[in-house]
């Protein structure tokens, strides 16, 4: 995980063949510039970045479902719960499950655990839109390789 550049996922562990569920992992780094401010002398993972990690987890699942045809953009965060502090060096398991795929949007239930204990959870809604002009899709595909996303299974060449 490199939270200072919003790389919240280290690895896509598994995507369910039904494309309804995903499991990812991300290890909070021992050192990061975000801890300079959050908080001085007491580094803990910002809650907003835990939500971002859950959003990115869900994002990979949505990309798998549409085979990278369109990009999910976070639109709504509901029922977000941040249950405990997350500290440098801790390895998070991140899960997401599709609740509904509508026309141009997806709703998912997502959560993270630490050694099996619940850390945070939320219901997220994404708008699913055509890729913007420019190189965003290529960059996301590159990040997909970085997180071991199974491109051969879930993306067209």
């Amino acid at each position, binding site marked *: 995980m490199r939270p200072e550049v919003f790389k919240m996922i280290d690895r896509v562990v598994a995507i369910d063949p039904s494309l309804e569920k995903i499991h990812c992992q991300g290890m909070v780094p021992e050192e990061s510039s975000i801890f300079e401010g959050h908080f001085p002398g007491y580094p803990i993972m910002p809650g907003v970045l835990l939500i971002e990690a859950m959003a990115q987890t869900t994002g990979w699942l949505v990309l798998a479902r549409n085979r990278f045809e369109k990009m999910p953009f976070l*639109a709504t965060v509901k029922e977000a719960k941040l249950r405990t502090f997350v500290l440098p060096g801790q390895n998070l398991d991140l899960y997401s499950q599709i609740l509904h795929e509508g026309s141009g949007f997806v709703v998912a239930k997502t959560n993270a655990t630490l050694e099996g204990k619940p850390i945070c959870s939320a219901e997220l809604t994404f708008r699913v839109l055509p890729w913007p002009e420019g190189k965003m899709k290529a960059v996301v595909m590159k990040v997909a390789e970085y997180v071991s996303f199974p491109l051969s299974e879930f993306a067209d060449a």
Partner: protein
Amino acid sequence: MSSTFDTVANIIAETCDIPRDTITPDSHAIDDLGIDSLDFLDIAFAIDKAFGIKLPLEQWTQEVNDGKATTEQYFVLKNLCARIDELVAAKAA
């Protein structure tokens, strides 16, 4: 139609915190009720779930943007309910 309208009106009232008695079949979701596109995602989610359908929002938006349809055709509630009834019937057929 009336039960479809009641369901949709109740969803809108609950989702957008709009007094139920101000929502009528002639209400325009956007112009009269002030529902924005983000709130409409919540409404679409609830409608999809309640009726077991998938509102074709992308198609409707495209038609409006292309000038092939007006927002009234899809977002005046009596028209929206008629579309929902069509989708439910098509699914059952």
